[in-house]
């Protein structure tokens, strides 16, 4: 049984595949539509779609000609929650650090730099 999360990560490791997923968050699309922003052959795009499909990140419709792709969210949720954990912790911290650095800069201006030779 392959490690699902690892296949999610390797699918996400490629910028073209991430761009395809980002496009699919706004709704399903055909292969031609997905290929449009890239300077890439259709077979190359199809290979990327196969990787995403194997990782369970997208599903493809049955219609013979059109076969629209759509995003499947569940494998992304684990990755997203991993990222969200860090984002939540650091977002507030860094906004506070922004403000704190302004204070530190003011203090230095007023009293001069400490411990400088």
């Amino acid at each position: 049984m392959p490690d699902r999360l690892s296949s999610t990560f390797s699918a996400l490791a490629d910028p073209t595949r991430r761009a395809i997923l980002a496009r699919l968050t706004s709704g399903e699309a055909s292969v031609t539509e997905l290929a449009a922003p890239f300077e890439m052959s259709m077979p190359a795009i199809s290979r990327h779609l196969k990787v995403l499909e194997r990782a369970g990140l997208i599903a493809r419709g049955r219609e013979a000609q059109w076969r629209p792709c759509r995003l499947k969210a569940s494998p992304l949720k684990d990755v997203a929650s991993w990222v969200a954990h860090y984002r939540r912790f650091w977002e507030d911290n860094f906004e506070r650090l922004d403000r704190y650095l302004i204070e530190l800069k003011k203090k230095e201006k007023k009293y001069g730099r400490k411990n400088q030779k």
Partner: protein
Amino acid sequence: MVAKTKNSAALTVTTPTDREIVITRAFDAPRRLVFEAYTNPEHLPHWMLGPQGWTMPVCEIDLRPGGAWHFGWRHSNGQQMEMRGVYREVTPPERLVSTESWGGDWPETVNTLTLAEENGQTTITCRILYPSKEARDAALKTGMKEGMALSFNRLAERLGAMAQRQS
């Protein structure tokens, strides 16, 4: 597509490999000052507090290779949290490598902080490396499930930002 406010636009969180998280953020201050704010126990409890409601009553730092650090937080509801590690490399004001663990089942990660200064602005990059896929999975199981409510818009933003950055 990336974000609405100046501050949140500056924060990126990416997963370049399946064992790494990379956080970057720019600050309007020289890196000497950012490094100081990151490593001096006089400064850290002013900002490294996580989400609202927490204070940081414990902040012990022995800033040298092999030196230990220990941070402790307390929430107004009585909940407590702590994090410990050991410094491996200390190169002010540009690089800091340390181990980090939240205790319990949480695996020990190796965190590499680098600070780059340009025109008085400092961009920090924090690379958090999990020792193995198993450790990463354990971390996911232990404490991150609550983060599952991440909105789809947020995810779209993140993927878009990742795609832009890498293309």
